[in-house]
């Protein structure tokens, strides 16, 4: 278990990179820390393995107070906390074998060779053992970096923007690998990212960071379906098609031109269960037209999140009844535009 208690780290006098952060990450979790660049998330993750020593607060890993360790003990503790980076940080003068062998100690040549081979098949690039990093693609480099980080059987893997330098397809395959490793090895994974997509794909829990503080944390599904803080809302919006409606309105698209009596609203599903035929049921029951302009439903942490943008057309009292019905079903209704009641 990783426990950060009131951790603060300042650079210079007035830059509070991390400001009084408390965080608990359970064993076996995949925990996301998301924030825009400069939010302090990279500094925060470096406080876990003390690459950055906090100015105040406590860092406790599996009951051990990291800040109280002597240098030699700290070096040893770090071998049990793997870390991978955005720029991979492989040593260019060493082959894949040399890179992965770097953290291995007190082993014979044969033992090292077989350990490296095992690690390479774990990260699914068994035939690259003698290649130099410059001969590998980005995704392969990150796989070697993961193998190197896992060389000493760590319990924790810290990922600092590990997929930010990769294309979307490679990102997907690396995330899948991390997910598999989490399952196979029971590895606790901490993922630092500015991409909501990454959190959505692999994290079970997440914290949103802004200006050195954690402003929201909890289950990923909860954060996605019901963001409370403005920064979180912005993040969620970056991944949702529903925000495109604002662009359409700004561009005065004919698609969103309302006729008199019409009302445009965003319906957001907050509940995990969206299997009911909500649109057609309301349309039939209240005898109104419901025109779907945009729809976006996604799978987050194994549950559905999303909604639709619709235009209601019909007598206003019946539209209001439909909206009441949706609210009773735990669907958030945000009126975007209202053309007023028909004369």
């Amino acid at each position: 278990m990783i426990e950060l208690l009131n951790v603060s780290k300042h650079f210079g006098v007035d830059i509070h990179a991390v400001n009084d952060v408390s965080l608990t990450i359970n064993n076996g979790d995949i925990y996301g820390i998301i924030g825009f660049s400069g939010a302090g998330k990279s500094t925060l993750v470096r406080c876990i393995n003390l690459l950055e020593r906090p100015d105040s607060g406590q860092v406790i890993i599996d009951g051990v107070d990291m800040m109280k360790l002597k240098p030699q003990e700290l070096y040893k503790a770090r071998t049990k906390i793997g870390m991978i980076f955005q720029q991979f940080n492989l040593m260019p003068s060493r082959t894949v074998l040399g890179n992965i062998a770097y953290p291995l100690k007190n082993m014979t040549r044969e033992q090292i060779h077989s350990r490296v081979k095992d690690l390479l098949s774990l990260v699914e690039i068994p035939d690259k053992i003698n290649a130099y990093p410059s001969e590998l693609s980005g995704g392969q480099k990150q796989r070697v970096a993961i193998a190197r980080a896992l060389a000493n059987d760590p319990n924790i893997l810290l990922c600092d923007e590990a997929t930010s330098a990769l294309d979307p397809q490679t990102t997907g395959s690396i995330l899948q690998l991390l997910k598999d490793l989490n399952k196979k090895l029971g590895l606790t994974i901490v993922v630092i990212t500015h991409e909501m997509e990454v959190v959505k794909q692999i994290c079970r829990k997440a914290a949103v960071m802004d200006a050195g503080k954690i402003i929201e944390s909890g289950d990923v599904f909860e954060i996605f379906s019901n963001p409370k803080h403005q920064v979180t809302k912005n993040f969620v919006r970056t991944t949702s098609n529903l925000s495109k409606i604002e662009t359409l309105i700004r561009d005065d698209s004919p698609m969103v031109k309302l006729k008199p009596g019409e009302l445009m609203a965003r319906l957001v599903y907050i509940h995990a269960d969206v299997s009911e035929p909500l649109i057609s049921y309301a349309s039939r029951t209240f005898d109104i037209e419901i025109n779907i302009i945009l729809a976006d439903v996604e799978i987050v942490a194994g549950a559905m999140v999303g909604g639709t943008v619709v235009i209601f057309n019909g007598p206003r009292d019946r539209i209001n009844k439909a909206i009441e019905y949706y609210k009773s079903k735990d669907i958030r209704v945000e009126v975007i535009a209202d053309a007023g009641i028909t004369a």
Partner: protein
Amino acid sequence: MQELLPNLMRRLPEFWKACGDTLLMEVWAGAIVFVFGLIFGIILTVTKPGGIMQNTGIYQVLDKIINLFRSIPFIILLTALMPLSRFIMGTAIYVRGVIVPLVFGATPFFSRQIESALAQTDKGLVEAALSMGSSPMEVIFRVYLRESLAPIIRAITITIISLLGLTAMAGAVGAGGLGDFAIRYGHDRNMIDITWVVVIVLVLGVSLVQWLGEYFARKNTH
């Protein structure tokens, strides 16, 4: 040969001795400069602000001392260090007497070269090594020195060549060597052929060092 290089051919033994003296100065001073420069360059790198063994006191003192010695013209250093030379080497003349000023003249230069070679090491590699549990000493030997082998070889090349320039001046305190040979005969007695031969020998020497340096640097770049 006799006709083409009349003055040189009459002084061949002296010429060979001059070559040998230059080589002797280069090797002895070079070896000592290498050791001290490497150590100082590493100390500068790790103690500077943001370094892995940050120590403002040590860094500032070393930094200023190096600047001090780099700003003293070598010809002044040669004479100013005579007492120290006598103390350490027992004499202030001949090849023995010039090793101390050569070391003082070239070490600051080489330290800076090493500092800038090590500065080319990606900070991310250092961070990765620390995250894998490397101690600062391990980072120095297994990351800094290993990963900047090519720039270090280039730094050695440049320093050997600049040291060659300094040995030429060492003739001023009676150390002998090719520079001294060229001044005494080529310049003072207007024996043009000697000047030319010395220049050609030095050009060949510099080219060889440069070529070897580039060869090994390339071999260590992946």
